[in-house]
C-alpha cells in the first residue's frame, strides 16, 4: 500500500520544530509500524537526507522505549500494544498518518520523535524500589502471599514505564504509572518496609516534575499497552491517605 506520513521534525530541544510530509510506496501490511519507519529512514539516507530519530530497543513490547502518538492516539489505533507491536495492517491504502512525539512538560523533546523520559527515572528513584540485603536470593516460597494479592501485584507490576499514560492523559498526569508502582509494592510483604515513605515521596516527586493532576478521565487505562487498571489509582489514593494519617 501507499501511505502519506506527516512526521514531527525537530533538530534539538531548542528548535521550534515542524511537520514534514513524506510519501512512502509499497508498504507491506505485514510490516510493523517501526519497520515502516525503518524503510522510510533507509530511503532518506539513500537520498542523503537526515533520517528521522525515534526510540526503540526490544521491539517486542517489553522495554517501553518506542512510544509515538499516531493519528491522535498513543501507539496508534490498536488496543493493548506498544508502538513497536503496532501492525501496518490496521492502516488503509492511501491513508494519511500523522506522527507526533509524546507531549508533556515533564517529557521534553530531544530530537524529532524522541523525548526525554528521565522524569520517570526520577519517580522510580523517589520510591519505586525495595531495600533488600544483598546475598543469595531467598527461597521464593518462604513468604506466603495470598494468590489474589500476588495476581493483583503482578498485574500492576507488568507496567513497562512507556509513558503512554502521560502522553494520552488530557492533564499529562503520571498517576497510572505511579499507582502501578505503589500498588505493586503495597500488595506485597516486601514492599511494607518503605510503604509509608514510598507513596509520599513518589507523589511529591510527581508534583515537582511537572506532571498534571489526575481527574479520573480514564484515557490512561484505555491506552496503556499493558492494560494497567484504573483501580490502582484508587489504591494509590488510599495508600497516600493511610501514610498521612498513620
Amino acid at each position: 500500500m501507499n501511505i502519506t506520513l506527516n512526521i514531527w521534525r525537530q533538530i534539538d530541544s531548542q528548535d521550534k520544530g515542524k511537520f514534514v510530509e513524506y510519501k512512502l510506496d509499497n508498504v507491506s501490511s505485514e510490516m510493523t509500524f517501526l519497520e515502516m519507519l525503518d524503510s522510510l529512514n533507509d530511503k532518506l539516507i539513500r537520498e542523503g537526507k537526515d533520517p528521522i530519530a525515534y526510540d526503540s530497543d526490544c521491539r517486542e513490547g517489553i522495554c517501553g522505549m518506542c512510544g509515538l502518538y499516531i493519528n491522535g492516539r498513543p501507539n496508534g489505533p490498536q488496543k493493548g500494544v506498544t508502538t513497536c507491536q503496532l501492525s501496518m495492517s490496521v492502516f488503509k491504502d492511501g491513508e494519511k498518518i500523522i506522527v507526533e512525539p509524546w507531549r508533556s512538560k515533564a517529557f521534553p523533546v530531544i530530537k524529532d520523535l524522541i523525548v526525554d523520559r528521565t522524569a520517570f527515572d526520577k519517580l522510580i528513584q523517589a520510591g519505586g524500589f525495595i531495600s533488600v540485603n544483598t546475598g543469595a536470593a531467598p527461597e521464593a516460597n518462604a513468604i506466603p502471599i495470598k494468590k489474589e494479592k500476588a495476581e493483583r501485584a503482578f498485574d500492576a507490576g507488568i507496567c513497562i514505564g512507556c509513558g503512554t499514560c502521560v502522553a494520552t492523559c488530557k492533564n499529562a498526569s503520571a498517576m497510572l504509572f505511579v499507582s502501578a508502582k505503589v500498588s505493586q509494592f503495597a500488595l506485597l510483604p516486601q514492599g511494607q518496609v518503605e510503604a509509608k515513605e514510598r507513596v509520599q515521596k513518589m507523589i511529591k516527586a510527581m508534583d515537582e516534575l511537572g506532571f498534571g493532576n489526575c481527574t479520573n478521565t480514564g484515557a490512561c487505562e484505555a491506552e496503556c499497552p499493558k492494560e494497567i487498571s484504573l483501580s490502582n489509582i484508587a489504591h494509590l489514593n488510599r495508600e497516600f491517605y493511610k501514610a498521612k494519617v498513620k
Partner: protein
Amino acid sequence: MSRYLGSSITKKLVMALAGLFLILFLPIHLGINFMLLKSDPEPFNKAAYFMANFWVIKIFEVVLLATFVIHIIWGIILQIQNWLARPIRYKVPNYSQTSFFSKFMIWTGLIIFIFLIIHFMNFYFIKLGLVKGDPENFYSVAHQLFKIPAYLAIYLISFTILGFHLSHSFWSAFQTLGWDHPKYTPLIKILGLIYAIFIPLGFFIIPIIIYLK
C-alpha cells in the same frame, strides 16, 4: 500558591469532599423547590424563611457557601496546573476512549458558576440585603421568573449542564477518596448516572409546570 494547598492528591481530596457535600445538598434544595408547585405560597415561603433564619441552617449556609468557593477555586487551580503540564499541544486531538464529560469539567463547572451568580442575584443576595427585593416572598419571585421564557431557557440549560458535570463527578469523587471495589464500583457508576439524570430532571419539572400553568 498551590504548594500551600498540599500535594496533588490532597487538593483532589478537598475537591472531592466539597463536591460530595454539594451532591448531598442538591436533593435538599430540590425537595424545597417542589413546594413551589403548591398553589399556596405559605409552605415554600415558610421553608425558605426557615432556611434563612434557623441557626443550625445558618451554620449550614456558611459551610455550603464555603464549599462552593473551595470547590470552584481548587477546581480552577488544578485545571491551570493541568494546562501547564502540556505546554505544547498535539496537532491531532486525542481520540482515546474516556469518560466523555470528564473532558469538559472546567467548562461545565464554569457554566454552573455563571448560573449560580444569576441565582444568587435573584434570591440569596436579596436575603443578604445586597440586592433589592422581598425576601419574605421568594415564592412569587420564583413564579415570576419562571414565566419569563429566557429565564426558563437559562434555567433548563444550566441544569442540563449540571447533569453533565455530575455524570462524571459522582463516581470520580469515590475514586479520589480511594473507594474502589470490584463489585461496588460498577454499582456506584450506575448510581452516579441515575443521580445525574434524575436530580436535573427534578429541577426541570418544576419550572416547566409553572410555565405551562
